[in-house]
C-alpha cells in the first residue's frame, strides 16, 4: 500500500512539474512573441476630422461625465465672418451674442469684435461638451475651421475608447502619442 502511495505521489509530482514547465515555457514564448511585436511608441485616441459626421455621440458616449472631446479652432482657416454659421442659430432673432441666437447649447463659443466687419471666435473648453453642432454649421456654409478633437489633457486613454466603439463613421483611431492631434490643414 505504502509503495503504491509513493508511486502515486511521484507520478503526480512528475505530471505537476511537467505541466509547470509547459506553462512556464508557454508564458515565456507568449512574452517573446508579443515582445517582438510591441509598439515602440505609445498611442492615443484621436478623431479624424475628415471622417467625423458630427453625430453628437461624443457628448454622451465618453466615459467622462463631461466629454474629453472638444471643438477646436484652426484660426488660420477661419474667415472671421460677421455672420458665422458655426456660431449663429440658422434662424437668429438678431445677429448678437444673445443665448437664443447661438447655435452652441452651452454657450461655449466666445465671439469678439476685432475690426469692421470681422469677429473672432474662440472655444471655452470648460463649457464645450463636444456635441459638434457648431462644427456642422461651420462645415455647411463656412470654411470648416471648427472641428472635434479629443483633448489629451482630459482623455484618460481607455484601453478601448467608448466613443470609438459607438462612432457611426469609425472616425476615431489610434495615433502616435507624439503627434496626438489631427488638425485640419489650411488649403
Amino acid at each position: 500500500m505504502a509503495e503504491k502511495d509513493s508511486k502515486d505521489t511521484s507520478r503526480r509530482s512528475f505530471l505537476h512539474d511537467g505541466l509547470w514547465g509547459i506553462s512556464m515555457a508557454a508564458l515565456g514564448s507568449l512574452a517573446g512573441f508579443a515582445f517582438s511585436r510591441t509598439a515602440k511608441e505609445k498611442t492615443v485616441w484621436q478623431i479624424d476630422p475628415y471622417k467625423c459626421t458630427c453625430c453628437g455621440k461624443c457628448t454622451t458616449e465618453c466615459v467622462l461625465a463631461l466629454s474629453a472631446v472638444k471643438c477646436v479652432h484652426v484660426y488660420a482657416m477661419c474667415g472671421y465672418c460677421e455672420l458665422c454659421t458655426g456660431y449663429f442659430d440658422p434662424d437668429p432673432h438678431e445677429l448678437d451674442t444673445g443665448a437664443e441666437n447661438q447655435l452652441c447649447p452651452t454657450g461655449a463659443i466666445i465671439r469678439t469684435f476685432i475690426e469692421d466687419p470681422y469677429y473672432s471666435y474662440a472655444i471655452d473648453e470648460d463649457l464645450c461638451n463636444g456635441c459638434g453642432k457648431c462644427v456642422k454649421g461651420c462645415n455647411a456654409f463656412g470654411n470648416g475651421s471648427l472641428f472635434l478633437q479629443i483633448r489629451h489633457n482630459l482623455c484618460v486613454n481607455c484601453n478601448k475608447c467608448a466613443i470609438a466603439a459607438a462612432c457611426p463613421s469609425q472616425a476615431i483611431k489610434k495615433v502616435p502619442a507624439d503627434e496626438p492631434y489631427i488638425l485640419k490643414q489650411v488649403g
Partner: protein
Amino acid sequence: MMRRKDLLMTILGVILCLTAIAAGQTRRFPPPDFQSGYEMPTTETPPPDADFYEYIAVAVLAAALGVGTYFIFVKRSRKYAWALMIFSLAFFGFWRMGCVCPIGATQNMAVSMFDPGYAVPITVLIIFLLPLALSLFHGRVFCGTVCPLGAIQDVVLLKPLSVPFWLESSLRLLGYLYLGLALVLAITGAGFIICQYDPFVSFFRLSGNFGVLAIGGAFLIMGVFIGRPYCRFLCPYGILLRQLSRLSKWKVKISPDECVKCRLCEDSCPFGAIRKPTGEASSEELAARKKILAVLILLFPFIVLAGGFGGSQISGLLSRSHHDVRLADRIYLEESGQVEGTTDESEAFRGTGESIESLYELSAEIQAEFSRGSWILGGFIGLVIGGTLIKHTIRRNSDEYLADAGDCLACGRCFEYCPRERLRLSKLQEDKQVLYG
C-alpha cells in the same frame, strides 16, 4: 421681422453655397487682412501624459506583487495584506483610474497574436504577464492584495454567505464563457467587452454611463453577502490565474504547522476555497467513481463536439456585435427597400463613397471568421464542462483542511482562525486575555 431674417439667411445660404462650389469646397472665405494689427492665435494642443506614469504603474505593480507575496507567505498577516489591498485600490483604482489592467490586457494580447499590424505597448505586456508569472510560484497573490477590482469588492464584503459547492462550480462556467466570448470578439475586431462592461471602472473614475454604473452597483450590493462575485464567477483573467495557480510551486496554507482538524477555519473563507479532509474512500465508492469516470472519458469528445455545435448556432447572433456586419445588414435593408430612412451609420458610410459590394464582401469575411470562432468558443466551453465533470469525479484524498490552490485568492483571512497558526505566531496570550480578562 422673422420672415425678413429667414429670407436673409436663405439668400446668404444660397450665395455661400455658390461661393463654396466656386472655391472647391474649401476656404469659402479667405482669411481677412487685418488693419488693426490683430494676430491670429495658434490652436492649442495639450499633450497626453508622459509615458513616465505608465512605467511608474508597472514598477508599483511589480513592487506590490513582491510585497503582497511577502505579507501572505512570510509575514502571514491579514492586516498587512488588507493594508496593501487598500493601497492598491487607491493607486491602481482611483489614481490610475483602473486602466491599463491585466484583465483588459488579455484582449490586447489576443489581438496582437492574430493581427500582425496590432502592437501592444511594452507596459501592457508586462502588466499582463507579471501576475501570471507570479501565480506559477505563489498563486493568486495578485487577486488578494493587488487587483483594484477585487479590492473594491473585498471592502464591501460584510456578511458573507456560503455558496453551495455545486452552484459555485456551475457559476464558474460563466467566467470561462466570458473569457472565450471576450477573446472571440476581440480577435474578430468587434470590440473589447471586458473593458466596455467593466463593472467597477466607472466608480474609479467617479463617472460613467447609467448602465455600467447600475451593473457595478448590483455587483457591490451582491458583494456585501457573496464574497467577490466578479472575481469568482466572471473574471476572465481570474480563469488564467486559477489554472496556473493550481500548478504553483508554493501554495497558500492555512497553517504551515500540522492541521489538528479543529474545524475552526471551516467557515473562515468567504470565497469557498477551503476543502475539508476527505478521509479514506470505501472500495464501493471508488468502484462507482471509476465507472463514472470511464463513461465521462468516453463521452468527453462528444461533449466538446456538442459544445462546438451549440456555439456555431449562435455565430450569426455574435457576428451582429461587429460594426461592419451591422452596417452591411442595414445597407442591404435600405438598398432592397425593406426599411425607410437612414441611420447615422449608413449615412456616414454613403458619405465615404466606398462601394457597397466591398462592404458586403467584408461583412461576409467577418461572418466567416465568427463562424470559425464560435465553433472554437463552443468547443472550449464543452471542454471546460467535460473537464469540470471529470475533475469532480476523481477523488483526491486529504487528511487536513486545505486551501484549494485554484480557488484561493490569497487574502489571508483563514490564518487568523487557525489555533495552530495563532500558537505559532504566539498570539495565544492575547486570546487568553480576551477570553478570561
